[in-house]
């Protein structure tokens, strides 16, 4: 069976939290992980809370514990994390599958980097996430009703 050789992460948490002098894509990746962890934490609680409806308990409806303003703000933060994670995730899938990195070229000086092709995709995805976030924010403050 093929064995994957991994290198020790001597930097610990900073090994995946620190972006150093890498490009903005590296910071987008760090934020992708942080938003993923945030959404996962919410999701695990969400499963338990929504499963209580099997006993007729609806904690999120008007008058319920999770209908209070502090939880509504938290819910919007989860929505924002989802918006970022989803659109950046689609970008990562496209890049991982070899789309949006450009065709292979000869390594002739001055070298060209696939970032020239990738970066417009990052910008487009962030604009889409921002639009999704703005529409959700408009709804969250009650203007869409």
């Amino acid at each position, binding site marked *: *069976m*093929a064995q*994957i050789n*991994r290198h*020790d*992460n*001597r930097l*610990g*948490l900073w*090994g*995946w939290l620190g972006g150093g002098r890498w490009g903005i894509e590296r910071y987008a990746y760090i934020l992708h*992980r942080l938003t*993923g*962890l945030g*959404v*996962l934490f919410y*999701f*695990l609680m969400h*499963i*338990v809370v*929504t*499963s*209580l*409806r*099997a006993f007729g308990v*609806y904690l*999120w*409806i*008007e008058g319920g514990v999770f209908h209070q303003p502090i939880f509504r703000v938290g*819910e919007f933060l989860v*929505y924002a994390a*989802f918006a970022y994670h*989803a659109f950046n*995730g*689609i970008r990562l*899938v496209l890049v*991982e*599958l070899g789309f949006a990195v450009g065709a292979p070229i000869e390594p002739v000086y001055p070298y060209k980097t696939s970032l020239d092709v990738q970066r417009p995709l990052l910008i487009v995805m962030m604009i889409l996430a921002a639009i999704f976030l703005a*529409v*959700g924010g408009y*709804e*969250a403050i*009650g*203007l*869409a*009703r």
Partner: protein
Amino acid sequence: MRETKYWTWHMAAGVVIFLLLGLHMLVMHLGGWTHLFAPFGGEAVSRDNSLFRDGKLFFTATYILLLGVALYHGLYGLRTILFELTLKPAAEKAVTFILLVGGLGLFGLGTWAAIVVHAAAAAARG
């Protein structure tokens, strides 16, 4: 090779989540715009609107599908992050075991609740 397969599933699950959770967000968080699947008016998350959706087989099926793919995507992502901290092999096995058992437990709980509420809502509707 096995990890490559798991990673591919992780990406595929992400695409499924994008579609299903996108629909969930359109119904729940953008209900003031879309008014989708909330025939009783008011908030999309009200008890009546929730019961309306729970009574629909489409929603019960997609809730269970979303639950499964989101648990896999989220817990596999967490496992990947934890493994990058260079754990000992025994610790890696323990993490995998805990996430697998926890994930299956939550999947069982969520699936059971979705089916119970679907049956009750469908019976109440007649």
